[in-house]
């Protein structure tokens, strides 16, 4: 497993340079006016960034308010009995709630757990697995749909949240199985 891991690590170091250098080089070989193409494509970037602002503001301010209201703590107390059923330690619960909402918030939880219980503790490992294996669902929805001005997202959010919920369960069970 560790050889595969090292290989993937090294490979991933080369992906970005290969992309940034390789694509223009290949384009040159194909007689593409690379500089002009680059600039033409790049022009879109600013527009996209500006276009997603309303979507991102809408999502993030609501999440910020929810966090500041102390609702997370209340939710954690409320859900505590359910947790023992699925084997999740209550220390990890804030992570499971916050992960789909904010990236920086969940990073802070990992840092806090590592600080309190040590980086090798089971709860820290569970939280790290949750952090590493899923994306911030609300952020992804705001950015991707914002970029194309889609506001009726249909089943995107339920599907994303179901996947997140599954990831939280898998993280708990797999960590219990590997390290428990």
């Amino acid at each position, binding site marked *: 497993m560790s050889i595969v891991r090292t290989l993937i690590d090294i490979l991933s170091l080369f992906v970005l340079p290969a992309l940034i250098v390789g694509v223009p080089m290949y384009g040159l070989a194909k007689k593409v006016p690379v500089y002009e*193409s680059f600039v033409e494509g790049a022009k879109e970037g600013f527009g996209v960034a500006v276009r997603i*602002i309303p979507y991102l*503001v809408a999502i993030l301010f609501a999440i910020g308010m929810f966090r500041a209201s102390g609702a997370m703590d209340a939710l954690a107390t409320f859900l505590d009995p359910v947790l023992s059923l699925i084997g999740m330690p209550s220390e990890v619960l804030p992570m499971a709630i916050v992960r789909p909402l904010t990236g920086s918030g969940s990073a802070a939880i990992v840092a806090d757990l590592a600080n309190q219980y040590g980086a090798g503790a089971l709860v820290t490992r569970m939280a790290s697995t949750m*952090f*590493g294996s899923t994306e911030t669902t609300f952020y992804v929805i705001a950015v991707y749909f914002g970029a194309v001005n889609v506001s009726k997202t249909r089943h995107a959010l339920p599907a994303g949240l179901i996947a997140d919920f599954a990831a939280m369960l898998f993280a708990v069970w797999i*960590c219990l199985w590997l390290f428990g």
Partner: protein
Amino acid sequence: MLNYIWAGLIVFSLVFALFFDVRDLSRDTYRNGAPLPVALDFEDRVFDPDADRQPVTLRIALDTYGEFYNTDARPDSAYAAQLRRTDDGLEIRLDADASLPAPLDQIRDTTNPRDQALQGTFVGAQLAAGASGAIGGMEFAPVRFVKMQAISAAALDFADTAAEIALGLIGILVLFLGLTKIAEDAGIINALVKLVRPVLGPLFPNIPKDHPAMGMIALNLAANVFGLGNAATPFGIKAMEELQTLNPEEETATDSMVMLLAMNTASVQLVPPVLLIALIGLEINKVYFAIVLTTAGSLTVAIIAAKLLGRLKRYRDTDPMRLASSTSSTQPDEVQS
């Protein structure tokens, strides 16, 4: 669904904030109007009644503190502070970097948010010139409706942060969208489409054969796999734009868009995010395997969820592809391959 969750977040933050604030008021968490018992110590100096400000050491008895605020938090044994003469009497002001226990940290943040220094009026026996210390109380400005203030501050803060994040993306977006354009012109995207068609085709049945959207999706997923979060976003946005060209109804998401989103939130990763490595260090080697297993499992669930939910009546009825083909037979139906 997003409508309800969004409104829910806002409404519930008000409800919870009110609940916590009322609870704080009824429990008198901040002991408004009651002075906290403290001892002042001038160390090797003495009290000078004419000085505008003088250094002083503030001591709070641990047990008294716990009893006074009814808390398990304990203050440090001594705090460096300034004693200032004001019109209202003597004011104690702690250094800005002092580490304060709850609820003093909350009192500091609420009563003096600008310079983050805890300040309060000294109440107690008249201090005589030349005294080496004094016992008395420290009275703070009243603290009420903390959470109420916090949610409005958070709303403003996060609106700011959101705009910052979006604008912060500009550089990377520009770089990768430029590269993507070269790749498109050089025919790399088309080659990629042919390569991934057998694997991704069944997941995105609404994308016509040889459409560049498939190539962009492949790039987006590949960037995710290699932990290039920065590159994944521009590719994902590009993929969404390509999918939007196939969308007959501008404001509504198509099944393909939902599938792409679901796959992105589950994010297949063979390389863990750099941020996580920064947080837990070498421990990453231990959880690496767990992350790969979890991510594979959640990706499977994401794909199944997106497919099955799409079959529900309420989501099938809003499918732009289906609507377009059933309502307008005059339009050329090129998207339905």
